[in-house]
């Protein structure tokens, strides 16, 4: 009996030095999938490869092929691998897709990455019906988690907080400019994030001209001379300050003069430097919005603790979906019994009807014949209606004893292939079953 196995390593278990040895992309990944699939006992396979995790999912006799996938590429990965089987593997995949296992819980990229992994496995024909059902359930779980909990809400990094703040002041940044003062690393990151709001221009200035030019290249902006600072401040709507200066670069006097020259159009100062570069008294001016590192960090902490709380609710959703996934599988397992039961009953009923009609000979007209056949079918339907409903119900609630008992009671071998039954009908029955829940 083949089972589902998941072997992988992630930011929880391995350093980037290990992760980068096994991370694959594009064509290489496709080739690796094909390699997995050609392994003797692997029926289906999928590989999720992102910068934070590499995971191999196989429908196989054992986890061995998945383990070998890692050990072939990085012999020292052994101590970092985790391995899940059956419901644990399903739960893990659902948690990953719902971003509950991410480095920043609730980040939204991972779902897209899992979808990509599934797309790749489908196009490489290594994802069969099992992985398809599994992944669709995982995507549905992620969607539920996202819409029913607040696990993805709020800004979870300093630059995201900056973006959110600026959005609440200016809406988008069309027609506005960003000024980056100083060469701090956080500053460049935030400027990049803000530029994505559609700012017309990113201006960069630094005491050293070369650093300014380098930063401008990095952020897609224009380098300006430090001596122009007061003029640049007038132009800029959002100013990100992160210099190494041990004193205030923007004092209330400078801010006041700037605002006057700007005709009091709103300005936002984001001070990412420690020690601070923007005098907090600047915020007392009308239309000036000033924030320092502490303000932004507070929001990040608040978001993280709020997400941690929401994650508890999300875990419950994942648990319910894992159960539902297996219940659906059980229900599918019960279907052959049902089909066989119905087939047997119909065979008997129609056989008896035929015998009766033969005995009556030509005494019945066409209408009468049809009535007898219809009656035989109706008896089968009425008789089997109750058992069918109860079997479906038992199967979907995960109870596999009743289908087994039914098979035994009626003398049916549930696993025998359904001859003459078109596949369309049974899959329609599956849909009806999963809709019922």
């Amino acid at each position, binding site marked *: 009996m083949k089972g589902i196995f998941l072997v992988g390593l992630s930011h929880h278990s391995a350093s980037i030095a290990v992760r980068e040895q096994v991370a694959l992309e594009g064509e290489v990944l496709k080739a690796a999938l094909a390699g997995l699939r050609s392994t003797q006992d692997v029926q289906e396979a999928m590989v999720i490869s992102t910068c934070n995790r590499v995971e191999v999912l196989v429908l196989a006799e054992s986890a061995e092929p998945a383990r070998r996938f890692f050990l072939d590429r990085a012999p020292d990965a052994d101590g970092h691998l985790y391995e899940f089987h059956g419901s644990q593997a399903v739960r893990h995949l659902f948690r990953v897709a719902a971003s509950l296992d991410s480095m920043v819980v609730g980040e939204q990229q991972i779902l897209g990455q899992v979808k990509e992994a599934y797309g790749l496995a489908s196009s490489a024909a290594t994802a069969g019906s099992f992985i398809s059902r599994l992944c669709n359930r995982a995507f549905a779980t992620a969607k539920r988690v996202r819409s029913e909990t607040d696990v993805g809400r709020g800004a979870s990094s300093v630059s995201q907080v900056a973006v959110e703040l600026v959005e*609440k002041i200016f809406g988008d940044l069309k027609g506005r400019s960003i000024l980056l003062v100083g060469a701090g690393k956080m500053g460049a990151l935030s400027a990049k994030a803000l530029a994505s709001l559609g700012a017309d221009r990113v201006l960069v200035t630094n005491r050293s001209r070369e650093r300014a030019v380098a930063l401008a290249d990095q952020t897609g902006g224009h380098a300006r001379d430090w001596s122009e600072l007061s003029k640049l401040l007038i132009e800029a709507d959002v100013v990100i300050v992160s210099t190494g200066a041990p004193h205030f670069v923007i004092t209330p006097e400078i801010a006041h003069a700037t605002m006057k020259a700007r005709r009091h159009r709103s300005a936002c100062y984001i001070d990412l430097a420690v020690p601070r570069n923007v005098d907090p008294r600047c915020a007392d001016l009308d239309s000036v919005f000033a924030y320092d590192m502490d303000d932004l960090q507070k929001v990040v902490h608040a978001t993280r603790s709020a997400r941690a709380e929401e994650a508890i609710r999300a875990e419950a959703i994942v648990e319910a979906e894992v159960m539902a996934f297996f219940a659906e599988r059980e229900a599918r397992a019960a279907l052959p019994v049902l089909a066989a039961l119905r087939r047997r009953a119909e065979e008997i009923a129609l056989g008896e009807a035929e015998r009766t009609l033969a005995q009556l000979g030509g005494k019945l007209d066409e209408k009468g014949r049809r009535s007898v056949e219809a009656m035989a079918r109706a008896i089968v339907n009425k008789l089997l209606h109750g058992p069918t409903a109860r079997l479906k119900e038992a199967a979907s609630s995960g109870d596999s004893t009743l289908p087994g008992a039914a098979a035994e009671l009626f003398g049916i071998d549930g696993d025998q292939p359904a001859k003459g039954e078109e596949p369309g009908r049974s899959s329609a029955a599956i849909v009806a079953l999963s809709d019922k829940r």
Partner: protein
Amino acid sequence: MSVTILRIAAGLYAAGAASYILFFARPRHVRASSTGFWLVGLAFLVHAVSIGFGCSEFGGADFFNLRGGFGMLGWVGAGAFLLLQRFYPIPSVGAFILPLVVIAVLPGLFGLGPDAPGVVPSVVRLPALKLHVSTAIGGVALFAIAFGVAVMYLLQEREVKGKHFGALFSRLPSLDALDKLNQRLVRTGFAVYSVALVTGALVAKNAWGSFWTWDPQQVASLVVWLLYGAMVQLRHVGVHGRRYALLTLAGFALVLTSMIAMGAVPNVTRHGGNFQ
């Protein structure tokens, strides 16, 4: 009859307001805002029917007192809000405007109007008066919406500046959007109100014999017009944001006090229902 229909309309307005407030409190329920929109649209139509019945029952005389004036204000305000949602869809505004509409409609629910159809003076037949009444109410309705938007601006500014990044912060629109919306409403309201002022003078010439008679209503309207006119001008010299929002509040407070004073103090003005 008209009061019964008005009660239905008021119920629908209240349900619409509740939907918008629910949307504001729980932004995840996106459907709440569209439900609110349809409820308010329905209330607007029912309200229109009630106004029609009111005209046939009381001969329109009921709309010349303060109660009727507020009712009309609520109706036009709701209509203006619906138009606004159509062209600048910011559903969170609904949570601030629709309660105002409900309050404006409330006084009408408890009045039964005059016992007999009132005698409507012949002035009412003037085309200028029709334009005067509709533009006056339209202008005030726009100022009322601007008032709501200004309140939203001040709340959001307190959140953004005071670094409270809580529930209000995430639910209210950006300062820039609120400021621009406020400016548009004030500008449009001012234009509409200007028409009301000019046509009002024309009606005064007909009814009272002179364009300008220092009637308290005329003086109050002129002050309101000057204040909003100043706001339109001040925009060009860089007054915006917080100060603009405060001016909007002051302007609407003036509109409201003058409206109530003229309607509640007997015989202070010949304007409106006091035609004797």
